[in-house]
Each structure stands twice: as C-alpha cells, then as structure tokens.
C-alpha cells in the first residue's frame, strides 16, 4: 500500500516536471521562430561614414585597441596634389620643409613621396597612425578632403558594442554589411 502511494506521488511529480519541460521547450521554440524571422545570413562590421565624421579625435582614444583600429585612408583619386598639403604640414609655422616639427601628424605616420615637380604623394603608415584625424581635418578644411578615417578590418576585433560608436558625437559609426566593409570616398561621390 505504502509503495503504491509512493509510486503515484512520483508519477505526479514526473508529469508536472515533464509538462514544465514541454512548456519550456515550446517557449524556446516560439522565441527561436520569432527570431528567425528577424534574422538574416549576413554578418555586420563597424564602419565610419566619412560624410558624418567630424574629426573630433575620439577614434584615437575610445577604441579598445591601443593604438586604435581606426586609421587614416587616402583616396588618391580625389587628392589635389596641393603644393602645400595642410594635411601634412602644420599651418602657421611658415616653414614648409618636411622637418618633424613642421608636420601635423603627431606620430610621423604620413610618408611624403616625390612624384614630379611640384607634386608629392602622401601615404599613410598604418603601423604608426593612431586615427586622431588631425590630417583629415587639415585636408578637409583647405584641400579636397581626400584623407578620411576608416575602421581597418585587419585590426578591428568587431566588438559587439563598438566603444568608439558609443563615444562618437555625430553618430558616424554604424554597423554595415560585412560584404561591403568600407565606406570609401570616391571621385564620383558614391560611397
């Protein structure tokens, strides 16, 4: 008699547990179905929209990587090959020789190559660039704006919440399709 009672009690417990498990599985399946509707196969990465970027300098300080995964990129096709490049030289020094103290870049990351009199070509040494955007601001103000900041995906760890995106005052950093991971400036104005 006692045994019988014990058995039925156990069964009742098992039934309750089983139905709870079923309810949990059903709830999870429903959630999965709802999420499947809101999902797609493509991954996303972070990128800076050069049209929104205000060169505030947060990219250099807020990235979790030191130095930042943001680097200056040069759209050579847009470059005016200015005789005095104000992305390269610091304004107001009056001396346009390529001495370190005359250069705008605090890390000497811009290499100036002679092309043809009077043209020089400016290349970014990404191992030195910290993404502060000083050169970008200079080029934007007095040149063609051919220098701009981009998140470099060989360095970016693709944090789920980009720390610079949180700190960006103009909301220029957003997720883009991983298939088109760059928003490069082009001559025709199309990103």
């Amino acid at each position, binding site marked *: 008699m006692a045994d019988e009672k014990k058995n039925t009690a156990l069964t009742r417990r098992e039934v309750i547990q089983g139905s709870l498990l079923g309810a949990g599985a059903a709830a999870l399946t429903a959630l999965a179905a709802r999420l499947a509707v809101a*999902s797609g196969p493509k991954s996303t990465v972070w990128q800076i929209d050069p049209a929104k970027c*205000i060169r505030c300098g947060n990219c250099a300080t807020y990235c979790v990587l030191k130095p930042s995964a943001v680097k200056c990129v040069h*759209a050579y096709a847009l470059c005016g*090959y200015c005789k005095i490049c104000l992305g390269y030289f610091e304004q107001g020094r009056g001396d346009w020789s390529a001495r370190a103290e005359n250069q705008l870049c605090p890390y000497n990351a811009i290499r100036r190559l002679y092309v*043809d009199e009077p043209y020089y070509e400016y290349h970014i040494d990404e191992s030195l660039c910290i993404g502060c955007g000083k050169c970008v601001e200079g080029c934007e103000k007095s040149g063609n704006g051919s220098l701009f900041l981009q998140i470099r995906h060989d360095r970016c760890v693709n*944090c*789920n919440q980009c720390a610079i995106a949180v700190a960006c005052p*103009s909301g220029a950093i957003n997720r883009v399709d991983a298939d088109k991971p760059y928003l490069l400036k082009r001559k025709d104005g199309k990103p």
Partner: protein
Amino acid sequence: MRPTSWLLTAIAVATLAAMAWGSVERFPPPELPADHPLPQPTTPAPRGGDLALLDVAVLLATLALASVFAVVLRNRKLMLATMLFSLAYFGFYRRGCVCPIGAIGNVSWALAGGYVLPAVVLVFFLAPLATALITGRTFCASVCPLGAMQDVVALKPVKVPFWLEQILGLMAYLYLALAVLLAWTGSGFAICQYDPFVSFFRLSGAWNMLAIGVALLAIGVFFARPYCRLFCPYGVLLRLLSRVSWKRVRITPAECIRCRLCEDACPYGAIRPPTDTRPTDRRRGKLILACLLALAPVLTAAGALGARRLSGVLWQANPTVRLAQRVAAERAGEFSDTTKASEAFYRSSGNFEALMAQARQKQVDLADGATWLGAFMGLVIALKLIGLHTRRRRQDFEADPAACLACGRCYNYCPVHRAHRTGDFATLEKLKAATSKT
C-alpha cells in the same frame, strides 16, 4: 518599398553624397606622369564567413562535450579541460566577441526592428538555452569564457548566507531588464559596454572597466563567480530553463548517505539539504502563501508605477535624448560653449524640430519600457518570495537546479560516486556506519 521609391531614395542618397563629398574638389587633380600609376586605398577584409562557421561549430561542440562530461561521464577533469579550451578560444582567441551574454542586446534590438540579426548571433543566443533545457547550465560550467575567468580564481570560497545571495541575486534580473530596454530603444548594448573581463581578453581597454574586472576577480577568490551569481543577465534565462531541464547534475549516482561532503565542496552554495521534517503549522504556512499570492499583483503594479515615475533617469542613456536636451539648453542660452555632439549637429545643419520630435519619441519609448521593467521586477520579487516560502521535497542532498553551474566539483567529494568509480564499497560501508551514528 516599390522600385520607384528605391530609385528615388538611391538618387537622393547619391545627390546628398555628391553634395557632401564631390563639392569639396577645390583643386582638380593634376596630370601626373604616365609612368606613375594612381595608387588605390587598400581594403583589408574582415574576419571571413568560414571562420564564423568555425565559431558556431566550436560552440556546439563544446556545449555537447560539456553536457556529456557533466551528466553522462560525470568527469570533472574533462569538464575543466573543456572550460580551459573555451577560455582560450572564446576568450583570448576570439577576444570575448561573439558571446551569448552580449547577444541579448542584439536579439532585443533585432526584435525592436533595429537591424537584421546575423544568423551566427542567433545560434550563439539560442544554443546554450536549448542545452540548458536538456542538461542544465553546462554552458556556465565549461563554455562561457567569463565564467571560466572567475572559475580559475575561486580559490578560497566562503559560505554566504542564503538570504543575502537571494537578495543580491535580484541584481541580475534588473540588469537583464535594463539591458533589454536600452537595446530595444537603440540606446546601446549595455552588457557589452560593461563587460568586466573583455579588457583581459584583449589585453587592452578602458582603465575603469579593467578596474571592475580586477575587483570582480579579487572578490571571486572568496565569493566564487560573483558575476555569474549576482549580475549575469543571461544566467537569468539559463536559471529559468535549467529549472525544468530534462537531465541535470545529480550529485550521487545511487543512494545519498547524507555525509554533507558535497555541500562543503560546492563553491557556489548551490547544494540544498534534504527536507525531512514536515512543517508543523501548515495552516499558518497556507495563510502566508495566500498573502504572498495576493501581494504579487500589488508588487507588480507598484513596480510598474514606480519605475515609470523614475524613467527620467534612463533618458540620459539615449544619445538622441542627450543631444536634444543639450541643443535645447544651448538655444535657451544656458551654455556659452558647445559639446562635440552639439557641434556635429550644427555642422550637419540638422533640423532642430525633427531632433526634438525624435527625442520625445525616445522618451515615450523609455518611459513605456521602464513601466514594463518595473512590472517585471515586481513580479520577480513576488515570485521569489513565493518560491522561498513553498517547501520543496528533497530526500537527498541535491543541487538547486537553478543555482547549480554544473561544474561537477561535487562528484569527486561524494563517497558513493567514488565507490562506484573505484569499486571500493568497503570504505563506503564504513562511512555509512559512521554517518548513521552521528
């Protein structure tokens, strides 16, 4: 959208882009010598899709192995090995992203229509939950890199009063609700932003987050896995599902001799003693239960109303609301200077009215969300009280299905488990005799 509206949008975007970029060509590019080709900017590709599939494969494999090791093989050493591998892979190799805990933000944002949820994130969010339904929180034990970080420093765990952990544990529910609300309203992914160990995985990061991580690890020496037990928002979901799980960690493979060794061995205070004595005053117990049941709707309503009144605190978390408040204050002449954000707004020749309308909408959303958050917290507290009041029948020392992190430490302390492993039943009989005397 119809094809025509696509076309119009494309034209508008192209025109705007041309205005923004094309118009600044102050100096037309010169004719360069023919032998000098124009260089193109390089575009190093992000981590490839195949590697994302590898992440998914590793996640599913470690989850499956952890479950088999914990529930079928009952082998702590293999679990530990899996945990260290996961720490190396998801922690130091993948540097903390992608992870199921942070995926709460992605999922909430995708459900709110913010973006299309990547399939990889979907799998990362769902797979540990599904595993919890089958074998309990084996994800916590052997797959989660945040858990592993704390697990390796849990050297001198002390017993914390049951009531204290129950009260402090409510923080995880609040954290989950806040994280969902902030992601839902597009205010950012709080869980990822305040991930305490990610700066260790990347070996760089903000000093304040590093400090929180170090503090948690220091506390974790004495209070094992503080993040998991008190804060982890994903743990809230896993707790719920592992309560009803099909299989889970059972301390003893056969009968329990009530030696209490497992209870002392558990660093997480997750082992509950048997409940032999029937409650003496059942009338009083029923009365209290009735009161608690009546209290549940009261707490829920009070939480909803209270949180709605306090929702102004959350406005600061949303960048649109912050910017609108700042710009409005600057226009009213409250500040003589500008911030970077307001400067960017003026430079973009943004529409003030549109910004204010957007911010008002966000404020409404945040207030509504806060109401739900308050109701949720009220309900959680009420259910917790009811749960603590109802008597669970336990004949043996058992792991609390919600609190057990499935680490398997108790196995090796259980003399019955050892006897079944070694076949040395004589020692077990001696122990049984000794424990029955005391």
